[in-house]
């Protein structure tokens, strides 16, 4: 009975969604109907929001990758919030699973996996670092870079059942990275006029040392995401009672 009702409701929802999506036009965002209005002084601009990003990313932020420029600069406040959500979740996980660590025995992985993962780990970490350092030039950035680092530690956890993250080191890393992010934002408030504003020279677009605060923030995010994801995986790993 429950299933039938659920199927009917879900199909009705499916139909509603399809009908509504058929009204969405894949229109060019540069068209006139999308021109925005400045909410503070009420004047109309002669561009839409996305076309502002496309045409001004390079000279306003110094980044080549527009997505990175939006994530770190234009909408950097969202990213601070997002990092906070991940931080909250990691705190919640360690808060709730505090005392469940113990020694349930697991079969040891075989030698090739063990030695191989030891060999591969530095390369994985290096790849992760490369991804987040070059976030403003190539696709990637802090989040995938951090995830790659975490997957390196995940590999270690898989091959060594007794491998645990050092809790203190992880929490210090994530705190320092978070403080760096928020502190750079506050420096923007001091040296420029608003929170998270860029106060460093933009440099030549296309080089690693360019784009002002973007690489610094992305490195902080990379460390933070990497440490938090690995601590979450570490806490959820199979050890109990």
């Amino acid at each position, binding site marked *: 009975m429950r299933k039938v009702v659920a199927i009917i409701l879900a199909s009705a929802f499916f139909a509603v969604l399809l009908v509504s999506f058929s009204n969405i036009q894949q229109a060019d965002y540069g068209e006139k109907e999308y021109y925005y209005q400045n909410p503070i002084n009420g004047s109309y601009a002669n561009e839409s929001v996305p076309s502002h990003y496309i045409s001004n990313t390079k000279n306003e932020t110094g980044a080549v*990758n527009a997505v990175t420029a939006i994530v770190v600069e234009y909408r950097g406040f969202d990213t601070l919030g997002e990092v906070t959500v991940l931080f909250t979740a990691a705190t919640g996980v360690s808060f709730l699973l505090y005392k469940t660590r113990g020694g349930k025995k697991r079969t040891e992985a075989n030698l090739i996996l063990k030695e191989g993962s030891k060999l591969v780990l530095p390369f994985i970490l290096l790849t992760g670092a490369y*991804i987040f350092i070059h976030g403003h030039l190539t696709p990637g*950035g802090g*989040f*995938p870079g951090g995830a*790659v680092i975490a997957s390196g530690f995940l590999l270690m956890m898989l091959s060594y059942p007794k491998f645990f993250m050092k809790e203190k080191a992880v929490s210090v890393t994530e705190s320092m990275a978070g403080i760096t992010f928020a502190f750079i934002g506050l420096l923007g408030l001091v040296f420029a006029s608003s929170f998270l504003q860029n106060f460093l020279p933009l440099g030549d677009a296309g080089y690693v040392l360019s784009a002002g605060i973007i690489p610094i923030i992305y490195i902080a995010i990379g460390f933070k995401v990497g440490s938090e994801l690995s601590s*979450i995986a570490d806490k959820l*790993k*199979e050890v109990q009672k």
Partner: protein
Amino acid sequence: MIELTIISWIMAFLVIGAAIYAIETKDLISAAIAAGVASLVVSIMFLVLQAPDVAITEASIGAGLTMAIFVYAIGRTGRWEE
């Protein structure tokens, strides 16, 4: 362009099939893996839709890590539904 449309349709059916399998199977490990597969195919769709940043992130976080923690959690609770 017709090839791309065909590929898109194939991917769409793959995703929907994987999603239905993930919901209907009684084995939670297969369900988690099917959800991961759906997520992975969606990340290829992101690539086709010219969103490489999102594709990388979805493949590593959405498909990889989410599936890993699901598998860990299922290992600590119970593998079978009901």
